């Protein structure tokens, strides 16, 4: 439903940082649920607030390390009832209950209360704890059944008797035939060793190996056969008793399954909230306000872009924007930051509706049923459609599907002629301004679209031409030119009155090293057109003389 906006906003890169630690919460996180229930969202925010407050109140890193450790160690367990679980599943239940209990032990009482993080399935836990040399290992201990100790003791005795009998037999073979088994199950000997006595001996079985060798295997004598039979019988008895034990343990676990499921739900809630709470300070996250009909963002940091700028040594400007009306048009030249502004808005709205805090001084919005994007997505193609066909296809799907939502349009109709594009865009803006349940924002560089009274017109402030020209180095490599553009581009948003016709495009083309002859020719054409339409000539500096 929100796939296009999700992909465009690149929210995944930030959500990865908020990945919880337990497998259960990770599964939930991976679902990328966008909630449309405000009450649910406020509860998720309250959870984060509660965990954060708890972290601030008792900042013991040892306790937090332990919680992290135990969260990671929670295993998957069967969620449906079984008559008999496998031993490996009993092990998993024990490991889950042990680690869950350890988490309950480390957290503060208020968090335990809020998230219902209290030890569960005490009877099952106590029983499972009997099996294993430590808290997380498991075996079917003697204590599970009165007959197990005796059976197992006898097994060990019989094994020792077998071992002794074999040793005695092997010693006799060595003594009589000079064949040293040295605890091997068989030995291959030269034919010269195979005497009549050896062939006739009941101590060994002989098998031809090749033309010159025989395999000598010590045989089972009466004593060994008897002991092996007893061992087999004891082993069968042991297995039967173990099966009884497993059935009993399974019954106890089944009676606790509901509690265990609740424990898993509690962990999912807590772990998700904790994952976000841990980043509140480092990423300066704030709680979104969901009661505003006017989407307002103060110093919103679009993290994917911020981090990219840091890596490139460029400055990043947080976005402050307020959509005063339900329909907004955002003007701006190429490289002016329009697309990033749209990404930022969708990023924040999605993050808020996923139940997380956001990296901004403040973010006020409401809950939308749909969050959509109309524009180009990287690598996208639809067979049989031109670029314009694809744009219309995408628009049609949003137009028909969205009755309540936030929709961002990036350079709509850019793939067709500018005259028709401006007309089409104007008509779409007009249509959406009449839909109060939809908040729409159109980023465009088309200056000739219609202006309506109840549409909010804003623009990216753009390039400081004088400063940019003053600093231009004609021989600088591309990377330096890009840095220069960045340094002199203002990425802030301001109202657009419609009277400012200065274009940054030619200046940017010039800064990127386009042929100066072409730039001057373009400037001349613009001046002619402006003269023809009685508009003021733009101040278009010539960077190269």
């Amino acid at each position, binding site marked *: 439903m929100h796939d296009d906006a999700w992909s465009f906003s690149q929210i995944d890169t930030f959500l990865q940082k908020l990945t919880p630690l337990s497998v259960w919460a990770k599964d939930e996180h991976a679902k990328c649920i966008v909630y449309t229930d405000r009450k649910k969202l406020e509860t998720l925010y309250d959870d984060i607030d509660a965990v954060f407050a708890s972290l601030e109140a008792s900042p013991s890193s040892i306790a937090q390390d332990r919680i992290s450790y135990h969260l990671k160690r929670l295993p998957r367990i069967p969620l449906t009832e079984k008559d008999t679980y496998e031993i490996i599943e009993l092990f*998993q239940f024990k490991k889950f209950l042990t680690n869950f209990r350890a988490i309950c032990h480390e957290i503060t009482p208020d968090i335990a209360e809020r998230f219902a993080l209290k030890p569960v399935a005490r009877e099952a836990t106590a029983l499972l704890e009997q099996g294993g040399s430590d808290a997380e290992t498991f075996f079917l201990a003697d204590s599970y059944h009165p007959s197990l100790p005796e059976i197992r003791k006898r097994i060990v005795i019989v094994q020792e008797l077998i071992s002794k009998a074999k040793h005695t037999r092997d010693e006799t073979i060595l003594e009589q035939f000079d064949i040293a088994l040295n605890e091997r199950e068989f030995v291959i000997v030269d034919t010269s060793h195979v005497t009549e006595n050896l062939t006739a001996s009941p101590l060994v079985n002989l098998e031809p190996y090749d033309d010159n060798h025989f395999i000598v295997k010590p045989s089972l004598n009466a004593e060994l056969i008897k002991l092996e039979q007893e061992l087999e019988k004891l082993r069968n008895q042991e297995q039967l008793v173990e099966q009884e034990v497993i059935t009993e343990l399974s019954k106890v676990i089944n009676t606790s399954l509901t509690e265990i499921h609740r424990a898993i739900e509690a962990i999912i809630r807590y772990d998700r909230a904790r994952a976000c709470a841990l980043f509140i300070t480092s990423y300066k996250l704030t709680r979104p306000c969901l009661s505003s009909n006017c989407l307002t963002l103060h110093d919103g940091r679009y993290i994917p872009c911020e981090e990219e700028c840091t890596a490139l040594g460029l400055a990043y400007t947080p976005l402050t924007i307020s959509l005063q009306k339900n329909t907004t048009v955002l003007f701006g030249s190429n490289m002016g930051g329009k697309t990033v502004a749209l990404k930022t808005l969708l990023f924040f709205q999605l993050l808020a509706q996923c139940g997380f805090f956001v990296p901004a001084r403040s973010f006020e919005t409401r809950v939308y049923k749909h969050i959509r994007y109309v524009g180009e997505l990287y690598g996208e193609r639809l067979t049989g459609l031109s670029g314009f066909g694809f744009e219309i296809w995408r628009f049609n799907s949003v137009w028909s599907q969205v009755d309540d939502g936030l929709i961002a349009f990036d350079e709509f109709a850019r793939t067709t002629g500018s005259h028709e594009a401006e007309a089409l865009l104007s008509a779409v803006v007009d249509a959406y301004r009449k839909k109060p349940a939809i908040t729409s924002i159109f980023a465009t560089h088309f200056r000739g679209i219609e202006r309506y009274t109840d549409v909010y017109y804003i623009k990216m402030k753009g390039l400081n031409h004088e400063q940019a020209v003053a600093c231009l180095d004609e021989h600088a490599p591309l990377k330096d030119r890009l840095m220069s553009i960045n340094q002199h581009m203002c990425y802030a948003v301001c109202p657009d009155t419609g009277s400012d016709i200065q274009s940054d495009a030619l200046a940017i083309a010039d800064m990127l090293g386009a042929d100066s002859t072409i730039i001057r020719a373009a400037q001349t054409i613009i001046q002619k057109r402006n003269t023809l339409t009685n508009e003021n000539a733009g101040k278009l500096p010539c960077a190269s003389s």
Partner: protein
Amino acid sequence: MLDINAFPGRVTCITGPEKNCGKTQFMNYLVQKLVRKGHAPAVMTAGYDGEARDLLNGTKKPSVYINPGTIVVTPERFLRTSTIFPEILEVVPGSTSLGNCCIARAQRAGTVILASGEGNSSITWTLTYLEENKLAHTVLIDGAFNRITQVSAWHNSQLVYVVRVDTVNVKKTIETLTRLLMLLSLNEASPELIDTETTFTMPDVLSLETIHAIPERIKTVILKDFTRVFLPYRELKSLLSEKQLMVLRKIPCAGIPVIVRGLSFKDFYDAVPDLPLKELIFSNPYQDS
């Protein structure tokens, strides 16, 4: 001659060129030798679907004899049917066609069938777990046949290569061992040699397909380790006559046990070319000379 002191503290991958060449039998022998010396090795296998099918069809697979305290890695179904009274320590992530694999400690002497899923990633996970939790510092891996790449999955690993020879396959086996000795003898490349004018570092394996990527002018080809060489014997010999082959990491070989049948070990040994490391070849430990 087998040097038992070469095994403690290392991960040893026991592999061979074909099925039923005696790997598990040799592992049984090695386990008992190590136990008698006071070591408690962990035992596992690097399985392959072919072996899994055998197990599912009921074709008999040799069991491994385990002493109390030995760490075993195998699917839970085989722990259940074993006599070793296992204590489950952990479950290896991912499941196999035989179910989930467990890391368990034997509480009693007995036998157990070893199996596992495919893939080096689960071996690496298991070895990391054993190391981090100090469960065993000596590990024996009964490798899938002809999966020599498994030995490179771990930083501290070595190889034992088991071969079975009879009058029918003697020529082929000599060729196999000659090839192996050539690869084991490859020198380690020092850092200065990497990416120079006359050296070329293979990005992946060296095979009949990728050999053409080596520029003519190159004198020395460098690979990650010898397990990356998939060239047959003749092509390898031809390459070595023109260029030098080096490795970034040498993987030691602790021994090449040869199980002869229908011919004498001495005759076979004498027929193998006198290459470096030929002394790694030794006779079947189950055969008295």
